[in-house]
């Protein structure tokens, strides 16, 4: 059934606020970035020179840029997968709790309210090689923890710090998803003698797939775009370039290094990558999603 409006103006009027927000906070800056990417400009904006594709050529002839892409992929998928599996596990557990349910749920949602940079600093302190409690505990367990030197450990640290915050968000959606699974289905399966494990994988998990898919997209976008604060507060992209993700490089070159043209070119590339990824996800992964 389609709803028809008597006049053409009203739907546009109702859409207007959202359209305005999109135009001002997304389209306009995106257009600015696109334009800036073709210029070289000094920090103060006193002189500006059109240089064509040079910013892009600089980027794509730099082997470190490809390295950074790889780092970003490893980082983003780690954040998405670790964050979602832990959140799913917690949601399943919290769904079973009967007494003190609200308290558990509230506590699990709490980290979401922490600002990214704060989350970064928190984990940075916990893992500080000379005084962080977790680092000291790891040392006593025989792990030589020093993320200032070891690129893999630095990566683990930024993944933990970025994931921790996102778990709450994922948890909330998974919990809502779980509560929407009809009890009758699960009970019927139980009567048929399916183990809890089997019930989860054959009934609950497929029914959760729209939620899972939605969260995958959201988590990847989060890892791609919103994690530079965490990285800045924990590793500053180091050691070497082992935690320099694409978005951190955009931030670092643009806001710290004041190279606006180069930074804009990078954000255009990043925009293209995320656009492409989203299309791929909707094309191929969404087919496996069962909506009802």
């Amino acid at each position, binding site marked *: 059934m389609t709803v028809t409006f008597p006049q053409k103006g009203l739907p546009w009027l109702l859409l207007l606020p959202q359209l305005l927000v999109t135009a001002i906070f997304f389209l306009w800056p995106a257009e600015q970035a696109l334009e800036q990417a073709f210029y070289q400009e000094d920090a103060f904006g006193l002189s500006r020179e059109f240089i064509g594709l040079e910013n892009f050529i600089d980027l794509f002839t730099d082997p470190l840029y490809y390295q950074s892409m790889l780092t970003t992929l490893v980082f983003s998928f780690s954040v998405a997968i670790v964050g979602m599996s832990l959140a799913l596990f917690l949601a399943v557990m919290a769904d079973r709790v009967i007494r003190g349910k609200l308290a558990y749920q509230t506590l699990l949602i709490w980290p979401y309210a922490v600002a990214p940079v704060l989350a970064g600093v928190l984990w940075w302190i916990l893992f500080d090689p000379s005084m962080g409690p977790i680092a000291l505990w790891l040392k006593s367990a025989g792990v030589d923890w020093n993320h200032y030197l070891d690129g893999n450990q630095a990566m683990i640290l930024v993944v933990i710090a970025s994931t921790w915050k996102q778990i709450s968000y994922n948890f909330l959606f998974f919990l809502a998803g779980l509560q929407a699974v009809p009890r009758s289905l699960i009970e019927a399966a139980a009567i048929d003698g399916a183990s809890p494990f089997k019930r989860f994988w054959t009934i609950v998990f497929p029914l959760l797939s729209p939620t899972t898919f939605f969260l995958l997209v959201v988590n990847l976008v989060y890892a791609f775009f919103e994690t530079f604060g965490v990285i800045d507060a924990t590793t500053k992209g180091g050691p070497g370039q082992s935690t320099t993700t694409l978005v951190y490089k955009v931030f670092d070159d643009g806001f*710290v290094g*004041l190279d606006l043209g180069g930074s804009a070119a990078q954000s255009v590339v990043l925009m293209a990558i995320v656009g492409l990824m989203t299309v791929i996800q909707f094309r191929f992964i969404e087919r496996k999603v069962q909506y009802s």
Partner: protein
Amino acid sequence: MHNLKLASVVVGLSMASSAFAATQVEWWHAMGGANGEKVNEIAKAFNDSQSDYEVKPVYKGNYTETMTSAIAAFRAKQQPAIVQVFEVGTASMMAAEGAIYPVYKLMKDSGQAFDESAYLSAVTGYYSNTDGEMLSMPFNSSTPVLYYNKDLFKKAGISQAPKTWQEVESVSKKLLASGVSCGFTTAWQSWVQLENLSARHNVPFATLENGFAGLGTEFKFNGPLQVAHIEKMGEWQKSGIFSYSGRTNDGAAKFYSQECAMFTESSAGYAGIKRNATFDFGVSELPYWEGKVKQPSNTIIGGASLWVLQGHSKEEYKGVASFLSYLSKASVQADWHQFSGYLPITKAAYDLTKEQGFYKANPGTETGVKQMTTGTPTANTKGLRFGNFVQVRGIIDEALESVWSGKVDAQTALNTAVERGNAQLRRFEKANK
């Protein structure tokens, strides 16, 4: 007639109000914590000392944030009259000729007495053009020194602080043998272990007088001295003599916890170390390699200076000029130096601090001043001036980290850093020609 009367009243009123309301001068700075409070105190003292101008200090976050917000404000035509910019931002500020009001010119235009020779040349050299004219007003300058744990030294049977890197090695071996887990760690590795290493041995860090003589400068820090030093530090990292602790000054934690017995860090770190050290510590000059230089040269400075931005009224600039003169007064400078641990910027402030007996009462605080003022600065020791230096420091950090972790040898790492750094210099040259 009626209107005329009214007009005269209005004119009279507005004249009266301009006589009462002081001209406001905004000052954006990056001094947090205790130093930030001191900045407010200085501004208040200036405001109380006269009634024409009112300086309003505004804390804008760390150095990078302060500089970025000032630049963004400039682009939006909302810039403050004075902004504090860290030393690595100097070249960017200098190149922005239409955005800055050189301090020497400001002082001349506003008729303030201004004698450049009253300032310490090692400090002002960093912020002067090739004609020796001061473009910005040094505010907080520091230089790297060696802090050492006297208690651990005593336990290991060492009586003196090491003067040379050879001694650092031998002393560290004794310390390790006595049960200490690390000889030394460093803050700001590029600044201390490459930039100041080069200056101390009077070796160029880059061509064209370390960038002072033009934007066409090229890096030279992959020379034999630097490579030998970094290679040695890479070995020391393996043997425990050196322990890497990050790009900024996080290594302080290793020094406080007595994990490392020595710490090369800014002279301005003194106050923090004094507050946090639960042991007796000493301050000594930054070591040099014996045999590589006869008499070690002066070290170069870090820290920040105050830049005046274009786009304000004449009246405001008069206020800025009189505030900058006030800041340079020996009593104000000496107080700031003694409180913050930053170096004094005028000879008079240094002498006054000496007279007041501050150095005697606080042993070690004079080390940085002495080290920075040894001899006359040469082309290799008067400072560094590179565009995109913030990124270059990042590139150097990456190169050094790859040496510390044993992935790459020192020569290769420094060659790569020079090459990548030069690309940054060329980008800057192109954007600012």
